[in-house]
């Protein structure tokens, strides 16, 4: 158990270094983009004098390195700073958006993960049957279409032609949970359709892989039912790769949903990031990318810990 703790600590400190590198890369990338906040905000109405005044007010006339260092010192002290564009505190700006993003991600995950596991187990159980083929074809085709296309199709059938669900997922804090769940069901279904295939196919493949092992054959020879063999004998040993794929997909649900956010007008973090990049609002871009990077790092770490717990051999690399 101690060694797991040690590994966690090691991975966490590596994660901090990764975050630092990410912030450096993002900062330089935004610096390289043409134009700055003053030009982007004033747009066509800019004049040289107003741009100079604007830059001076925001401190954009200082060299890039000193801006980065001062951002970093504040950041280390836990101060995300303020949006350059409208002066709102970034912590306020992000907390709403991030909880929205987590909400729809969790919603989709609650549908997608059990669905994928069940489909995967069933497909392994009845492999090469009609059920297996149909499950594979449907899920593969749903991931093969671009997300926005899947979203439009859902809107067309479930919202425009039959008004089952709203086409806008504009939720607000004042709504009761049931209303929020109702309004975000189409984005949740879209995301589910996009992530389910990856997890399902991995479940199927790793179970089938284990099914060839001698101990499974032993279990079969003892006269166990195929379902019992798969769920109680094969699945625990197939868990490690499945957990990893689930973690990757959960991370995708958090960071990769910007297209879905746009189509359903959902106020999540992705849309905020796009807005901020197009306005070169660097403090917001930095904070949002750190959250995204942090999500990836944490989910991967959790996945690794869980796989090790399910298969302690992984702790000691050969």
């Amino acid at each position, binding site marked *: 158990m101690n060694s797991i703790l040690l590994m966690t600590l090691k991975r966490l400190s590596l994660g901090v270094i990764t975050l630092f590198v990410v912030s450096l890369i993002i900062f330089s990338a935004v610096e390289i983009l*043409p134009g700055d906040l003053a030009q*982007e905000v004033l747009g066509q109405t800019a004049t040289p004098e107003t741009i100079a*005044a604007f830059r001076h007010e925001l401190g954009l006339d200082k060299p890039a390195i000193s801006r980065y260092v001062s951002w970093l010192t504040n950041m280390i002290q836990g101060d995300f700073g303020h949006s350059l564009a409208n002066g709102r505190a970034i912590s306020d700006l992000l907390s709403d958006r991030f909880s929205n993003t987590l909400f729809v991600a969790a919603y989709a995950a609650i549908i997608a993960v059990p669905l994928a596991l069940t489909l995967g187990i069933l497909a392994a159980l009845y492999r090469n049957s009609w059920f297996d083929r149909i499950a594979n074809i449907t899920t593969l085709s749903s991931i093969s279409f671009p997300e926005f296309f899947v979203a439009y199709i859902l809107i067309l059938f479930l919202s425009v032609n039959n008004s089952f669900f709203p086409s806008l997922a504009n939720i607000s804090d004042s709504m009761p949970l049931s209303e929020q769940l109702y309004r975000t069901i189409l984005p949740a279904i879209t995301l589910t359709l996009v992530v389910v295939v990856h997890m399902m196919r991995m479940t199927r493949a790793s179970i089938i892989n284990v099914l060839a092992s001698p101990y499974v054959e032993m279990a079969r020879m003892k006269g166990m039912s195929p379902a019992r063999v798969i769920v109680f004998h094969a699945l625990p040993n197939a868990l490690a790769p499945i957990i990893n794929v689930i973690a990757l997909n959960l991370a995708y649900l958090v960071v990769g949903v910007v297209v879905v956010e746009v189509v359903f007008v959902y*106020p999540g973090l992705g849309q905020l990031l796009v807005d901020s990049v197009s*306005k070169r609002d660097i403090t917001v871009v930095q904070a949002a990318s750190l959250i995204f990077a942090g999500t990836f790092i944490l989910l991967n770490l959790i996945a690794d810990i869980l796989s090790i717990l399910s298969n302690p051999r992984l702790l000691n690399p050969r």
Partner: protein
Amino acid sequence: MNKTKTLNHANTLNKPIDRRRFLSGSLATGAAIGASSMMSTNLMAMPAKKGGTLRVGFTQGATSDSTDPATFNNDFMFTYAYGVFNNLTEIAPDGSLIPELALKWDATPDAKMWIFELRQGVSFHDGKELDANDVIASINHHRGEQSKSSAKPLLADITSIKALDKYTITIELAGGNADFPFIFSQYNLVIHPAKGESIDFTSMNGTGAYKVKQFEPGVRALYQRNENYWKEDRAHLDEIEIILISDPAARLNALTTGEVDLIDRPDLKTLHLLKRRKGLRVEQTTGTKHYTLPMLSDVAPYKDNNVRQALKYAIDRQEMVDKILKGYGTVGNDHPIAPSMRFFNNELKQREYDADKSRFYLKKAGLKKLDIQLNLAESAWGNDTVNGGVLFSETSAKAGINIEVVREPNDGYWSNVWLKKPFCASYWGGRPTADWMFTTAYADGVSWNESRWSHEKFNQLLVAARSELNQERRREMYFDMQRLVHDEGSTIIPMFGNYVLAMNDKVQHGQTASNWNLDGLRFMERWWIS
């Protein structure tokens, strides 16, 4: 007051206007505005109904929007400005200037010294009464070294602003400007409460028709009627919700599924399908928005007016309007004054596509053929900008002009391409007066002179007309200026775009203004639902 002499046109505007009489009066003259409105007459006759919630889907707006009036740059913030605040002056649906927070105004005969008398008894949403301090602070926010305001160039001529008493201010200008009060109808120049020397723009506290209930830039805004609003017969709706839906398909879906009542900038390509749906309608207004192709007049080959003329004849304007604007627009005549504007030169012949004439001018410039680049991005003309460039290159090829269309990134288009590349695409939302439009983009040396055009006679006329009080002489001068820009200007203006809106049948309004989209951006206080 008796020292100052009233201007001719200001005089007519200063009469206290009974709003009802004014409305009926402007309806009678509605025909003169021509195509400015597509409403049926029975819609107009319907009296405004109080109450209800209007939900609107907007295209423009971003999380980075600030409530600082110096940085307003999209529809979300423009309507915030006009809905929550008031200006000194207002542009009426018929295009004339009417009093808003300024009750009346006067000027010295040279139009250099202006005196504005403020309306008394108007209070901000928090109960504070409006006075001259608030007005002066709000104007000064856009002036001076420190100001980053996009309205700064408009106010550059002001040399001093003083309060005579609590309700009177005087403004002194470096040069005479007969249209000066028009400037105060601009969305930036809304009146905020003063806070020391500057203004308080963070508390969103205005004198306008609506109070802010929720305000989340980039997502939505919820407004509630100001029950103490000082204007009569305005602010009909109880609540207005504005939701940002930047994706055109999502916006259309929101309207067809009844999530919103009104959307702006519908996708022109699918409008014919939208019209088939019952209970929805499409409205368009011919406004002052126009699309331009500026050529830098100090860069070869555009230095030569013959080359510029050749290019002006090489573009097929009608085909542009039909294919790029899908018919939602009118052809332009290479000057920026819209038919709905005062002093529009209706004697100028419409320039048509003529490959032979184009060749003739090319020859006159000593050229057999011409190879040039045209840089554009969707920021300039919308989704079909590049198609517009390709269409131009097709028609110009017949005249021996080979245009290479270069697609630029949207990001940073206004800072890296516009005003920098010798031939690019641009657009103007339009300005309410001819002087304003010419001064913004055609006067010598101003920073938005997108073609760097400098024409001695034009600039003389521009300054002279600005302080000319005789309407007949003024008209002649503006006619001459339009002719000069048409013949010698360095900007191709192929078309004027209509403002297009789609809405359901609940949404009602009177005659709409054409100076901006959405009834001069003042739909919040003017429109109602049935």
